[in-house]
């Protein structure tokens, strides 16, 4: 059976549009609310990235940090995250879920136990921010055996030689970091330049899906829509923080935002 992630890209291609990937932090602002958000935005989002909050995140900007610290403070544990995924999948079997986080959380859980749990709860892909290639080779192979995509990150600093090697070893989906930035930075490179880099990467192996992330908002998403997929994270986390501050319902507000983002891709 094909991984639902690949099916989603197929479907989006058929509709002649980029796939929309959202990122929210598991347990932000509570276990229940983060599940409600997933359920609600799944109408418009094609792939749901679920962040595993960590308290020493070396690649996240302030928006995602705020969400992560809030989730940890409200008591989220690794097993709760698997429960959220499992509950979500009960009513959304085919909607792909990708867990994104830092390696220590997997390391402490135990690689094999973690992957088994991913399988039993319905996780389709993993992004491990601080497990780059070639350090990730063994773990990526383990993922493959469990039919979980290990998604490689590619950056503007990745040399062409390295890009080729990473893509050669990669699973069907990869993630291109648009610019030198932590998550949620202001887009400091023109969309054109980002797309130039994207095209260069895409040419190495056109069959591999490449999504672009970092710095993508309602304003910028439209200009990058020729990519296979686009990830919006910090803008969503920011919306959750804003809603909480104004005592509004984050579920409704985030859903509205995701709908707007989707419309920009149609």
């Amino acid at each position, binding site marked *: 059976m094909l991984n639902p992630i690949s099916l989603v890209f197929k479907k989006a291609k058929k509709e002649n549009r980029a796939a929309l990937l959202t990122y929210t932090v598991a347990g932000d602002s509570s276990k229940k609310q983060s599940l409600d958000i997933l359920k609600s935005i799944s109408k418009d989002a094609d792939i749901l990235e679920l962040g595993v909050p960590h*308290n020493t995140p070396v690649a996240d900007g302030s928006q995602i940090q705020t969400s992560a610290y809030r989730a940890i403070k409200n008591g989220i544990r*690794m097993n709760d995250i698997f429960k959220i995924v499992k509950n979500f999948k009960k009513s959304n079997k085919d909607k792909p879920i990708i867990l994104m986080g830092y390696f220590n*959380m997997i*390391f402490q859980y135990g690689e094999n136990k973690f992957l088994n749990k991913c399988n039993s709860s319905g996780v389709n892909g993993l992004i491990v*921010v*601080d497990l780059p*290639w070639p350090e990730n080779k063994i773990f990526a192979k383990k993922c493959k055996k469990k039919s979980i995509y290990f998604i490689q990150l590619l950056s503007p*600093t990745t040399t062409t030689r390295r890009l080729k090697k990473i893509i050669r070893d990669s699973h069907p989906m990869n993630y291109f*970091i648009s610019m*030198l930035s932590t998550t949620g930075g202001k887009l400091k490179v023109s969309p054109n330049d980002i797309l130039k880099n994207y095209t260069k990467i895409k040419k190495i192996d056109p069959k591999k899906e490449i999504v672009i992330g970092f710095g993508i908002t309602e304003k910028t998403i439209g200009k990058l829509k020729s990519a296979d997929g686009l990830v919006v994270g910090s803008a969503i986390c920011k919306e959750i923080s804003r809603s909480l501050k104004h005592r509004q319902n984050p579920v409704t507000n985030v859903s509205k935002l995701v709908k707007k983002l989707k419309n920009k891709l149609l």
Partner: protein
Amino acid sequence: MKIKKKIPLIDQANKLGFWGGKFGGNYVPETLKKPIEDLETQFNKLKKDKKFIAERDKYFKNWVGTPTRFIKLENLTNHVGGAQIWSKVVSDANGGAHKIYNATVHCLLAKRSGKKFIIGDTGAGYAGKMLSMAAKKFGLKCKIFMGAKDIARQQPNVKAMKKNGAEVVPVYSGSQTLVDAVSECMRFWVANCDTTAMCVGSTVGPAVFVRICGWSTSQISRELKIQLIEEFGSIPKKLKLYNCVGGGSSSFGFWNEFMDYDKKQCEFIGVEAGGPAKSKKHAAPLTYGSKIGILHGAAQYVNQNSDGQIEETESISAGLDYPGISPLHCFLKDTKRARYTAASDEDALSAYKTVTKFEKLRPSLEPSHAFSVAIKEAKKLNKDTIVVVNSCGDAYKDREILKKRLGKKYVEPN
């Protein structure tokens, strides 16, 4: 797991940067792979380059001030009544602590690679102060990340950084101490690695930073070896080297040249921060058996919960207040080359009182931890044993804490 002889410990990591196959490595975001690789290439080349070494030695000699003194603490020895107690007064170095060695080398490397900006983290403020000094000396713009809690408790060093023209960026996340400062510094580097060099303030972080820092602070033991031979004619038969351990940069530098000696002859004792006697929190992952985990790009023993969230630490000494520990020390612990123990806040304060009562030496709260254990153990040894404590920092920065905890008379110059 075994230490190889005749190969510097910093060069005993495998291809992926792991000591003993499991400590260290490069758990970094993809964006940092290239700058780290560039730094590795540069460092591997320059550390064999005679011209570069001559340049380093020139600055160490004329600017840092080498060698720092090696003195016998005669009064303290008589008071304790056991082993001979000596001190390597590394706080003689320009700026008042060992952090100057690493800062100088990082600035030299940054200069050579054409970078105009340098960033660094700091806990006690020494790493930041020294980086700001070196940056000024070498004409680099400098930004220092420091936890808000540490900014409040280490004001003299903050003032020094600002005076040197560095921007001090307060970090408000998490425990607002060193661990958060390092995270924030790494985040800034992720976003600016094309123009900016990063200096990690201790033997922590991705493998190359562990190596550069260890290479730099090893100046301490190079000097000590010569000084011991001058004093005793040869390396003493029973030598015990006591050093505080936070990230582990001063202790590693203090021990490195003695690595190949049998531990029965040259014993290494690392003293971690046990925190307040009444608190469960501490900064002593080696002493209290913390599990191996990943922090700031490296696998190491680290205080964490069962999920892998890094735990908050507590110590009176900002310089030791770090939940992890250098991969080099994890390796030294597991190979049993070094022995690790902890001293509490109260132990350190009491040792500070004793040392300053008997000697014209004012160790900061970090080396006071080492003095505490050295004094206790020296009592049980005879005078053939040479105990050396690395007094790696000066207490000037701790004025406010000492005043509050011990009273005004302990901050007056003695």
